[in-house]
């Protein structure tokens, strides 16, 4: 195959997008909403507009502040920066904030760290920065122990220039198995960003010495993106904030209609609440997902899905689930409520689609194959989904028996009154397949909605 044929094939391959991409805006929406855990994004047949009117930015200054907090400089800018995080806002309102006010300068660049908001799992840095007087600066951080050695498994974000009236925000999370040190060394690389929004007829500035035409590529040094400055900060953390957590080890069993989950640990941090849930090895199905929330002793809902990481596997039977923080809520009578569970039954992990007689297909209850459209050896499958706004298909077995993952998925709402509710029409594609039936691997085979939420006392 020559390169041009490879190029055409690669272009065609890239046209096929994974099922998860269809729900990008759902995930972004969930991160920016204050409450309510979305189950899926559905579009009305006519337009996206109706569903996306739920996009709301909340900056709520109505909650009374602690007296010390009211006197913080740049408070308004700080609250704008945490508008997307109910947990961070609550931490600040409860004085869980460390003023720092350290400035470092070099080579025309300056960065001031104003505040730290953190606990033993997550560090949030609020800063301002400029280069030659311009705030158009991007921060790319790296984190180390005081002696310069690695901190272990981390996740972190870089800092784009903040909007006017906001402080910049860097966030770093440490893996649940790692320890947060009392001193963190931040190495911040500063990169100026161009203003994209100059007037249309303003000429593009002449290239600097690091850019330019290559007369002879073999003789020109490869250009690298170079920061205008690298600034280092030693952040001394307050052990009281690092140690702030409440841990319950209820080891309590939850009976979900014959299947057992064990709530092994509930760790309540100021930045979030982490549940370690273990599945009983004798369950006849694997857990694929849960709809759940936390209630306090009065029965008020106090914790639900949070922005960012929602779950991560620990081992074959144990999973971490993250929810919003309930650290500043009364913890007497903490109760976990489960309203729905999705399961992959062990003997139903593979279903068979009949591509000639759709009605003979075996699928989870509430889902039917309604149309099979062939175009050469490629097939478009259409389903009617009465139960859930999410992808139920994982992969399909090709003619050689190899498992191929679905890489394209679409969905429309058929519910004109509420596009986020069923029924839905889902579709996907199978490529290079000529058979009359196809075996498919499911994400879940059964969705169970409990008439009454299953309540599990945790404390």
């Amino acid at each position: 195959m020559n390169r041009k044929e490879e190029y055409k094939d690669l272009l065609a391959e890239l046209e096929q997008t994974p099922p998860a991409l269809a729900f990008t805006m759902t995930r972004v929406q969930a991160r920016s909403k204050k409450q309510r855990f979305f189950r899926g994004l559905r579009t009305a047949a006519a337009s996206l507009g109706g569903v996306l009117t739920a996009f709301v930015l909340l900056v709520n200054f109505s909650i009374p502040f602690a007296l010390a907090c009211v006197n913080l400089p740049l408070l308004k800018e700080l609250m704008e920066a945490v508008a997307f995080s109910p947990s961070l806002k609550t931490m600040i309102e409860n004085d869980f904030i460390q003023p720092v006010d350290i400035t470092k300068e070099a080579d025309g660049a300056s960065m001031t760290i104003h505040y730290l908001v953190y606990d033993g799992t997550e560090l949030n840095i609020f800063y301002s920065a400029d280069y030659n007087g311009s705030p158009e600066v991007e921060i790319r951080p790296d984190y180390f122990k005081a002696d310069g050695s690695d901190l272990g498994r981390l996740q972190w974000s870089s800092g784009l220039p903040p909007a006017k009236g906001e402080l910049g925000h860097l966030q770093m999370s440490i893996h649940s198995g790692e320890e947060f040190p009392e001193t963190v060394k931040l190495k911040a690389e500063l990169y100026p960003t161009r203003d994209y929004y100059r007037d249309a007829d303003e000429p593009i500035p002449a290239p600097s010495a690091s850019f330019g035409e290559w007369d002879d590529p073999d003789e020109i040094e490869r250009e690298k993106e170079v920061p205008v400055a690298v600034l280092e900060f030693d952040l001394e953390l307050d052990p009281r904030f690092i140690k702030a957590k409440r841990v319950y080890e209820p080891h309590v069993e939850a009976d979900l209609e014959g299947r057992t989950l064990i709530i092994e640990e509930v760790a309540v941090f100021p930045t979030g609440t982490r549940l370690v849930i273990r599945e009983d090895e004798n369950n006849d199905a694997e857990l694929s997902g849960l709809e759940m929330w936390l209630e306090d002793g009065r029965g008020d809902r106090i914790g639900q899905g949070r922005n960012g990481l929602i779950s991560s596997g620990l081992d074959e039977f144990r999973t971490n689930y993250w929810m919003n923080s309930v650290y500043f809520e009364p913890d007497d009578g903490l109760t976990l409520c489960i309203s729905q569970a999705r399961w992959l039954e062990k003997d139903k992990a593979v279903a068979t689609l009949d591509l000639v007689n759709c009605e003979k297909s075996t699928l989870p209850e509430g889902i039917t194959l309604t149309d099979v459209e062939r175009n050469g050896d490629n097939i478009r499958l259409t389903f009617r989904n009465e139960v859930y706004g999410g992808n139920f298909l994982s992969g399909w077995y090709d003619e050689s028996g190899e498992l191929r993952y679905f890489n394209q998925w679409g969905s429309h709402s058929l519910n004109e009154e509420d596009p986020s509710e069923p029924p839905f029409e889902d579709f996907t594609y199978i490529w290079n397949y000529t058979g009359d039936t196809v075996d498919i691997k499911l994400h879940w085979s059964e969705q169970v909605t409990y008439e009454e939420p299953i309540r599990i006392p945790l404390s």
Partner: protein
Amino acid sequence: MTQQEYAARADGLKSRLYRTALLWLGSEAMAIDAVDEAIYKGLRGLKRLREEGFLETWLTRILLNVCKDELRRRKRQVDWETLPETAAEAFDALPLRQAVLRLPEELKAVVILRYFTGLTQEETARALDVPRGTVSTRQRRALELLRLELSEEVES
């Protein structure tokens, strides 16, 4: 631009952004995460977007920075290396997708945006913050290394 308008337009751009991220990162899961992060960052910084017509190049710029951050974060886990530009034979021996992945960063950015995402030279220059002439030079060099003959005037 209102948030609703941003959401609608970002939703329409996500496939293009995904293709860029996938070619840059080489992993479907990482590409999905990168697109999520870029669109979220765009929402947070929406007030800075004064020219609505530049939304795609603006988001592309954010996405490339997210991708670069991700690669730096996983630098110990990456099992491929960027080949030097003199390794023409090495590029030639690789499948096209792998060859793109191993291009030097500045060449990779241009070829992905121009020939797999469909941006014009002007749009690519804006997204990468370089003069248009530099885009032209880099795309020529990248196509030479990839042994790929495509028109320099390929437009979306």
